[in-house]
């Protein structure tokens, strides 16, 4: 079965439009910003981290399924693979943030310029300083890029040669990746997001961000699968595959809500000021968004995807995926903005435009990668299972 994706003009035009909107928004944000380009920098950082995590989620999906000796996902696995290939672009974008830090172009992170007498930041100086921060960022992204590249090359070699040794390699790569990921994803969350509120801390934070990554990644996979399917590209993807993806979206949304609740309730209950200040800031300055965040990200997928049938209807899946991606964008907004731009942050055309630009860029890269190889890994030993996929329940 040789299906190749053609990255034609039909796809390129809308994506180019999105990218142009993004660039225009970037320029506008630099001009319409009264606070040393804060509007540009905070949005840039927020969108960069969000898109990096969505991209990374593709590899997480692959690794977990590989270690679980799962077969059904092989029909669609080229899509999360392509998503993970965006990471080098993510690194380039993150480098811009780092350069901004080194040349004092932005104040996203208050710990880069601590006030004298701030004992809390003094105590964290060994960790929160620009050189170490930069090395860590490069380490995370470097490691992720190396491991996803390794996976991709192995996967492509399997296309050419059905020898089982490539299949066995996938488990090795998956195992190394998942351990490296488990440690670095939490650290990246602490560095890139939690340290924006440097006087605050939460042990759950890394896992909370991870759950958001799982949800957003799954939503993105669903959308890309549905788009390809609608264009006639993946005829073997049947209701069963969609059902399973829908189950993931449902379950991971509940997982995210559970972790959101755990973090919030425990800090609320203990009522210790150095912890509650985080939520007080959000409840007072970002009240509507705060409740939209938990409401939309829990109730919409929960109610929309509860019944068995709903998870088999493409339009319902697509709608829920879009809502979830927007909802988790709000989650990132609430993680980044209050501690950096604070009261001056807003959601306007510039914010939406920049996000659209990132989406366009991301999908451009994903489609380009998809076009480079067979859409299905036909030599994968579990592929036949996925091709004739039907289940008892």
């Amino acid at each position, binding site marked *: 079965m040789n299906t190749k994706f053609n990255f034609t003009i039909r796809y390129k035009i809308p994506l180019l439009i999105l990218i142009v909107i993004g660039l225009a928004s970037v320029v506008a944000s630099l001009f319409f910003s009264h606070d040393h380009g804060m509007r540009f920098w905070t949005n840039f950082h927020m969108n960069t981290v969000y898109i990096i995590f969505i991209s990374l989620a593709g590899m997480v999906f692959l690794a977990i399924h590989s270690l679980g000796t799962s077969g059904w996902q092989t029909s669609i696995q080229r899509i999360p693979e392509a998503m993970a290939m965006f990471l080098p672009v993510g690194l380039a974008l993150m480098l811009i943030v780092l350069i901004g830090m080194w040349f004092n172009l932005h104040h996203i992170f208050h710990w880069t310029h601590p006030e004298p007498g701030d004992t809390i930041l003094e105590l964290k100086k060994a960790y929160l300083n620009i050189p170490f921060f930069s090395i860590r960022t490069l380490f995370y992204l470097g490691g992720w890029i190396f491991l996803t590249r390794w996976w991709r090359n192995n996967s492509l070699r399997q296309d050419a040669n059905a020898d089982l040794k490539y299949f066995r390699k996938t488990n090795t790569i998956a195992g190394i990746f998942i351990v490296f990921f488990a440690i670095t994803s939490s650290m990246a969350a602490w560095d890139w997001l939690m340290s924006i509120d440097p006087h605050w801390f939460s042990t759950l934070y890394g896992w909370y961000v991870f759950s958001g990554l799982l949800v957003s990644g799954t939503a993105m996979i669903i959308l890309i699968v549905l788009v390809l399917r609608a264009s006639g590209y993946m005829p073997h993807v049947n209701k069963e595959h969609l059902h399973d993806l829908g189950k993931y979206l449902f379950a991971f949304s509940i997982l995210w809500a559970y972790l959101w*609740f755990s973090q919030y*309730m425990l800090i*609320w*209950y203990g*009522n210790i000021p150095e912890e509650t200040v985080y939520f007080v800031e959000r409840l007072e300055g970002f009240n509507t968004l705060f409740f939209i965040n938990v409401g939309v990200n829990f109730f919409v997928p929960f109610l929309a995807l*509860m*019944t*068995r049938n709903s998870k088999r209807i493409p339009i319902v899946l697509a709608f829920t995926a879009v809502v979830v991606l927007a909802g988790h964008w709000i989650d990132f907004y609430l993680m980044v903005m209050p501690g950096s731009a604070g009261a001056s942050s807003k959601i306007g055309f510039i914010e939406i435009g920049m996000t659209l630009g990132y989406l366009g860029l991301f999908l451009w890269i994903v489609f380009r990668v998809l076009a480079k190889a067979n859409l299905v890994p036909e030599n994968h030993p579990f592929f036949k299972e996925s091709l004739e996929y039907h289940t*008892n329940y």
Partner: protein
Amino acid sequence: MAQPKYIKAYYDYDEKLVGSLKVLKEKGIEILDVLTPFPVHGLDKLLGYRRSWIARVGFIGGAIGAACGLGFQAWVFVKDYPLNIGGKPFFSLPSFIPVTFEMTVLFAAFAMVFAFLIRSKMGPGAHPFIHDEKITDDRFVVLVGLKGNTSDKNIEGVKSVLNGTGARGITLKADVELSKNY
């Protein structure tokens, strides 16, 4: 009063069972029941069973549980005997979530189990007629109806169709009133 007659037969394998049922359906033979040692894939569809409404019972049970849980806690802490616990508000929603969630699950689970047992006429002390002791071992039993036509010609006809599909132990029975509603 004479019990209506029916024919009992069995198969050794689930594939044989499913294939044969298709043949029987094509020939317009009435299938009263199929009894198996484990749930056979595809049987539901073949026999025209609609998907169970047990899920809806579970959902309703859960909704009742949630309403009861949240409602009761709210009433106790806001109306009946408000207490200042650690300075938290009387309607402390985060505190109420755990119990509400547990009540939801508890009510949903019990609702479904009771619905299942009642609808299937099962329960402690239930004494149904056991058609074959080997159903729970390795036999796939089919009970075929005669649509009221108990002439020898019809009976022989049905028996020969069953024979053709590879059924074994084909016997005419009349020992129990087979209720349609179970």
